């Protein structure tokens, strides 16, 4: 016997309440902001309450005191600005839920638990916008429906029955069956459908006060420094950091070979790189295109529009730009009257950032111009460098002599552009790629170039920057992502494991020109296997969740409603134009016929499945079914005429009652009953015409019995 079949109403109600609360807590906890202590406390209390089932309220005063203390503590933290008010409210709600879970017993406790679970879901909505919230919400919708309905039933029984009778019903297995639970679950699905309808149509007019965006904890990505002395292995993280749609779109087959530039790191720290710390000028637009590029773009334009959705935890406030010169950035954002709009900021080194950075995932469109002059076009640009790029010429105080010699060897007497190309080529061809980190080294560049001769992308780019700077050529390290994989959801996914580092070399008149010394086989990540696929599928779902739920705003609403209205209008037009014989009519008729066929087929299939599930004894012949139906109809007629029948009234009793209340109809009922019994149990045939005749005869007799008396009034 399955556990569900062994479930009593009382047990099912308690489990449903706990499940709803756990789902609500899960919706709240996936944000990761509640803290491990609170998560452990909740699940510990839930498990202990389920196992120990404490019935005493002896120590309730202690709980109340603790709650009061927690409230005061949190209020103080909120007042002092150390705790966010939404997070504080969520944490306190969890404590209240734990308290009530431990002391549940009365009707009030159960209702309070359900109300607290709603508050927890709301807190989860404020703290996190992840797809996991959607799953928790789905679980919550089902479990809360069970909990509401079963709690209602439980207390309805307790209030209307004697304690003994109520205990018998509550501890019985008659009321809670798998069928009842399935029916309640379908009820919750109906509620979810309604919820979706309300979600789509509810006007998205927002006031914009007290807005708290969801935030994620940065996991990896684009910090403002690089440490080359870390030891270990570069992780292949399959999590998606960018969802990109490109125009013009490259072929969906194969992988993308685009560099996604995040930021440049110019200052050598002795262990790696960090960003320069100049005072920002507060520029809020992209930098103007240098003359050489401008001329090339004019001669041979090659624009690219990238619609980018950046996951906040990875983008760290940086606007990622595909290869080319950024011409403009446009942010998507929900419309609010007072909501903070996302703004673009440009650092002195040209890096682009958005603010406020804690807005959660960010969605923007970058237009770039990819038309770059080739090396021949750049050659001979000179060595006159502006003062603001002096930082890109700085070399470390102590450089290994072998590195200096190598720099001279590769660049001596060459044009800066040729020198850069030579260094890039030498690194690509001469050194190998590995994901293993070098471990603690006093000079990671020299170790990489002359000892290990193998390294990851940051070592390649760092080595190139140092070699070029030693030759007096301004260069800088650039971080970002490389590549991308096409997903079934129709966008390109760039993953955390695609993190990459390359080099930008300053060419007068053309600005910083990218060079990538890392061997192509080592660029990006090689993420294969079911886990990487699963992550992509999950990301596809997340993207849809974000596109259709989280970012659904007034414009989306207008578009959706307009689309529905258009579809309805088109259908109306199509039907109004449809005349027999016209193509529109044929199409409409075909669609209607197809729909009907599908519906009828579905019903037939359902009936067949249900019929299969019945015991064999219920399989009746056509005559038996007809007899049963005839008897039902006869009973309905008699019932309408005031003959007192109950479900248990036998045919013989029916004849007797008819003789008492409608004497003229008694012979007809007797004939009908004998035919029915013979067909239903005696194997006699009952053709349809015979059934119809008997029923008509009964109706005539009933009418006749009513006529002289003027009708018998029925008691209602």
């Amino acid at each position: 016997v399955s556990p569900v079949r062994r479930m009593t109403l009382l047990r099912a109600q308690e489990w449903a309440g706990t499940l709803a609360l756990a789902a609500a807590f899960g919706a709240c906890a996936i944000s990761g902001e509640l803290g491990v202590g609170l998560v452990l406390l909740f699940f510990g209390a839930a498990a202990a309450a389920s196992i120990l089932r404490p019935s005493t309220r002896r120590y309730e005063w202690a709980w109340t005191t603790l709650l009061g203390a927690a409230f005061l503590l949190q209020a103080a933290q909120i007042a002092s600005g150390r705790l966010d008010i939404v997070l504080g409210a969520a944490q306190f709600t969890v404590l209240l839920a734990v308290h009530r879970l431990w002391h549940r017993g009365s009707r009030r406790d159960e209702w309070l638990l359900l109300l607290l679970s709603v508050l927890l879901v709301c807190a989860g909505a404020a703290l996190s916008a992840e797809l996991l919230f959607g799953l928790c919400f789905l679980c919550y919708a089902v479990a809360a429906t069970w909990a509401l309905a079963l709690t209602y039933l439980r207390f309805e029984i307790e209030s209307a029955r004697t304690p003994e009778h109520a205990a018998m019903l509550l501890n019985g297995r008659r009321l809670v069956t798998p069928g009842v639970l399935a029916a309640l679950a379908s009820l919750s699905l109906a509620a979810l459908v309604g919820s979706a309808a309300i979600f789509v149509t509810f006007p998205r007019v927002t006031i914009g006060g007290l807005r708290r965006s969801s935030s994620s904890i940065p996991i990896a990505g684009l910090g403002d420094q690089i440490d080359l002395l870390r030891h270990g292995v570069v992780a292949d993280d399959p999590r998606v950091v960018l969802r990109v749609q490109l125009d013009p779109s490259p072929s969906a087959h194969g992988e993308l070979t685009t560099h996604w530039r995040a930021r440049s790191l110019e200052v050598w720290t002795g262990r790696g790189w960090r960003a320069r710390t100049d005072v920002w000028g507060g520029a809020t637009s992209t930098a103007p295109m240098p003359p050489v590029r401008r001329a090339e773009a004019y001669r041979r334009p090659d624009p690219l529009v990238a619609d980018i959705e950046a996951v906040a935890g990875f983008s760290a406030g940086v606007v990622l730009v595909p290869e080319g010169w950024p011409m403009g950035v446009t942010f998507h954002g929900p419309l609010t009257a007072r909501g903070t709009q996302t703004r673009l900021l440009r650092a002195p080194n040209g890096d682009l950032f958005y603010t406020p950075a804690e807005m959660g995932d960010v969605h923007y469109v970058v237009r770039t111009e990819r038309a770059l002059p080739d090396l021949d076009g750049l050659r001979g640009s000179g060595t006159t460098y502006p003062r603001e790029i002096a930082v890109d010429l700085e070399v470390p105080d102590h450089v290994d002599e072998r590195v200096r010699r190598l720099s001279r060897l590769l660049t001596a007497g060459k044009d800066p552009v040729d020198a850069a190309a030579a260094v890039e080529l030498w690194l690509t061809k001469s050194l190998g790629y590995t994901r293993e980190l070098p471990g603690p080294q006093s000079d990671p560049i020299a170790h990489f170039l002359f000892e290990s001769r193998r390294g990851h992308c940051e070592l390649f780019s760092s080595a190139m920057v140092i070699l070029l700077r030693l030759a007096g050529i301004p260069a800088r390290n650039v971080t970002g992502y490389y590549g991308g994989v096409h997903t079934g959801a129709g966008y390109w996914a760039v993953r955390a494991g695609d993190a990459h580092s390359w080099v930008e070399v300053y060419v007068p008149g053309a600005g910083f020109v990218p060079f990538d010394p890392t061997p192509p086989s080592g660029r990006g990540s090689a993420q294969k296997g079911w886990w990487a696929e699963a992550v992509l599928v999950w990301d596809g779902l997340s993207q849809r969740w974000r596109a259709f739920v989280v970012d659904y705003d007034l414009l989306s609403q207008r578009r959706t409603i307009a689309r529905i209205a258009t579809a309805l209008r088109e259908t109306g037009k199509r039907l109004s134009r449809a005349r027999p014989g016209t193509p529109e009519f044929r199409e409409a008729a075909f669609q209607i016929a197809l729909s009907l066929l599908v519906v009828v087929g579905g019903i037939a299939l359902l009936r067949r499945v249900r019929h299969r599930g019945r015991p064999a004894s219920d399989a009746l012949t056509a005559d038996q079914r007809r007899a049963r139906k005839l008897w039902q109809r006869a009973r309905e007629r008699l019932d309408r005429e005031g003959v007192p029948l109950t479900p248990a009234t036998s045919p013989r009793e029916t004849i007797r009652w008819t003789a008492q209340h409608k004497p003229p109809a008694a012979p007809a009922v007797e004939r009908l009953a004998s035919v029915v019994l013979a067909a239903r149990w005696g194997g006699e045939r009952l053709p349809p015409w015979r059934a119809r005749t008997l029923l008509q005869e009964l109706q005539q007799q009933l009418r006749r019995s009513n006529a002289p008396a003027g009708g018998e009034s029925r008691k209602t």
Partner: protein
Amino acid sequence: VSVARAGALTARARVVPAWKRRLSFTPLGRWYVALTVAIGFAAINTGNNLLFLVLGLLLSSIVVSGILSETSLRAVRVERRLPISASVGAEALVALIARNGKPRAPSVGLTVREKGGDVAGQGLFLVLGPGRSEEVSYRFTPARRGVHRFDQLEVATRAPFGLFEKVRPLSAPAELIVFPRRIAPPPLEPRQLAREGESSTGRAGHGLEMHALRDYRPGEDARSIHWRSSARAGKLIGVDREQERRRQVCVVLDHRRATGAALETAVERAAALFERELDSGAEVSLALCGERLPAGSGERHRIAGLTLLALLDASSGAPPPVPDRDASVLEVVA
């Protein structure tokens, strides 16, 4: 005579339209709606779509609740079955019968309760399957004698979530006449006990005692032959039996000066005497101020007498009671 006169008030009762419903919040429903409004405000204020999603779930649950409660109430027929008799101070059982006329959908959590009449009571039908009838009953203890009116029956449900109570009123007028309180009657006197039952009238009839002997008439029942006299006379002698008549008692209640508790006490004593004499086999008549019940016996006569006493009002201007001349009189002094 039936004291439960169902339908007696139909003519003057308000006819409740079938569509009429009344909706009210339960305490949980009040909290639920307040929370929904608060979440709606928060959603509009913050523009957080996930809060709109939660709001959608709460609102659609309200809609689903409304649809299901309406489904539960629809096509449900309710009937009240009153007790044959009820007395002041004694528990009476009123049966409520509900039938779910829907072919497929069950009705869940139906509470049927009295509304607008003199009696309060309710019964719960937890689950009423499609096409099924069930019966529940409630008890009530009448506090006064006389007519108790029943007006409407309300079919209410809080299903499926207990957030709202939807009520469908039904016209179901009826009356129940509550008899006077049953008190212990004064014990019978010894001479009455000695001659319990019938007394002879001195005329031929169908009693047990012998009235006269005569010639046997052919075709008569053989049991009418007096065998000892026949043996003595050498021919068949028949016997006529004495006609017997039940003892006749008239309970007299002069309540012209009695009001309030005194009247109630007198009525209760009269009822007790009336019932005691009926139980002892006498034919009992009632003589009240301005009203009279002829002598009789049996259950129907008992109900008629008790009904008369149940409906008795204080009446100072009424004519005095006129006792039965042929009957022994038991007078109740008010």
